[in-house]
């Protein structure tokens, strides 16, 4: 695997150097280089939006720090939760006096580190509330939603909650919007190849040529089944067919659709998939009001795609179409 790195153990440090050099609108916090915040954060009088997670998913997570989005992010090692201290420092960096919403994904490490960070924040007299994304349908059966992983649906939650906070929403309102967003979002991924963590030097899972792993996680967590590859249109049907009945979505629904490549899958193919997804949705009577296609949430150079569908209501449609600007998400 040929890579553009200096030392495999320093990829996160080196990436962060590049990020802050290229983006004056972003900064590392003075005493914690593993926290990236908007240069203008904390914004006084605004609810702070915080997230965090392992690296290797770029533009997630730090690419969503920006205008009307996330205020500060805790940055972990590749595929590994940030430290509790980093989550805490991100909370401090985002706290404009109206409380902090920590909106993150359901992974053991993140859960634990956020829990410890909140202890620290409470000791420091801060108000922090959390919403945990659990949009990944194949990661646990219906009825066991609390066990599901958070995947690209997190982005939709940052988007709506970020807009709500920017529009002056209170912490209660921001949390309610984030929770509503993730409650109405369902996702699924299909993996077509593995990826290699630079420090490990070899893949820790494998997908054969001619096979796809349906329901795979962002770190190669096993999916529901390994099957022969099918056409993009069939993939779209499988994905839509998994996602729609789970909520369930219904005829007449307006939705936001987010298709993300996992890293190495060309944008061309993501649009080919989108075409199939849109068709499958419209056959189910579901209208795509907000389509989003691109490398939003990757796993290094994994091949594959994820689909996230958010059931909109008037409030969410307004918030999701609100302008925003960041590395990973721009909207006028």
């Amino acid at each position, binding site marked *: 695997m040929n890579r553009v790195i200096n030392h495999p153990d320093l990829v996160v440090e080196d990436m962060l150097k590049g990020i802050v050099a290229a983006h004056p609108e972003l900064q590392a916090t003075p005493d914690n280089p593993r926290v990236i915040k908007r240069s203008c954060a904390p914004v006084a009088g605004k609810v702070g939006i915080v997230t965090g997670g392992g690296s290797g998913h770029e533009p997630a997570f730090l690419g969503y720090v920006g205008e009307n989005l996330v205020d500060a992010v805790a940055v972990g*090692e590749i595929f590994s*939760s940030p430290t509790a201290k980093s989550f805490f420092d991100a909370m401090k960096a985002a706290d404009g006096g109206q409380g902090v919403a920590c909106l993150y994904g359901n992974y053991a490490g993140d859960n*634990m580190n956020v829990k*410890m960070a909140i202890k620290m924040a409470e000791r420091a007299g801060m108000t922090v509330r959390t919403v945990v994304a659990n949009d990944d349908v194949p990661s646990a059966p219906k009825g066991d939603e609390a066990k599901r992983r958070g995947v690209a649906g997190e982005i939709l939650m940052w988007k709506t909650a970020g807009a709500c906070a920017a529009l002056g929403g209170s912490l209660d309102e921001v949390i309610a919007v984030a929770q509503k967003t993730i409650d109405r979002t369902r996702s699924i991924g299909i993996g077509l190849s593995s990826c290699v963590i630079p420090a490990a030097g070899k893949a820790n899972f494998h997908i054969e040529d001619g096979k796809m792993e349906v329901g795979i996680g962002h770190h190669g967590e096993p999916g529901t089944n390994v099957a022969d590859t099918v056409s993009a249109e069939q993939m779209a049907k499988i994905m839509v067919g998994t996602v729609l009945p789970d909520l369930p979505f219904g005829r007449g629904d307006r939705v936001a659709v987010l298709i993300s490549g996992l890293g190495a899958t060309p944008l061309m193919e993501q649009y080919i998939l989108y075409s199939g997804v849109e068709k499958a949705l419209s056959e189910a009577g579901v209208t795509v009001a907000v389509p989003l296609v691109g490398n939003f949430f990757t796993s290094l150079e994994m091949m594959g795609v994820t689909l996230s569908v958010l059931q909109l209501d008037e409030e969410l449609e307004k918030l999701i179409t609100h302008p925003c600007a960041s590395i990973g998400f721009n909207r006028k």
Partner: protein
Amino acid sequence: MNQGIDLKSSGAIVLALIDIINENRAYLSEIDGAIGDGDHGINMSKGFSQCREALLAKAELPGLAEALDTLAMTLLEGIGGSMGPLYGSFFMGLSEALAGHAQLDAALFGKALAQGVEAVESVGNAKVGDKTLMDTLIPARDAYQAAIAGGADFPAAIAAMLEAAEAGWRSTKDLQARIGRAARLGERSIGVLDAGATSCFLLLQGLGKGVVSRLA
């Protein structure tokens, strides 16, 4: 006997724990490599080494309670993933129980151990049989408390704790992982020791030895 050890002069026990982790760095990663991602020794050694630096940076070596707090905080600062919060909570639990005391006696050790284990449980939610460090920790605490309840003195109770810790650690070999990275392997996780259970046994052993040697 039975009286206890002076906490203020026992901060070096934490230095001993740091040595144990650094000495077993390669071994712990090797165990993790079999069914995990092979970084347990690296993760632990990173955090524990940071603690050594923090302790040595102080004007003088603090007492055991503060040293344990420093360890907890550096783990929470220095290592993400699961180990930071799990061991961070454990040592924070110990430290909080000891804070304000001059002497560590059998009762206080039992209270601290219980508080540490409870903190890990509450953050990690793992149970005995999940193939994690809880398979070392919970039997160890239970054995300690049973020994005390049965009239054992401090060193004997620590010996009972370590015996149970070792048995619990070894039990992980035949368990199927239900939590953590190894869980994805299903049945293939059976047949090798758990990395976290291993480091946990080594740490309890270091702690026990440090206390017992100071009791003489």
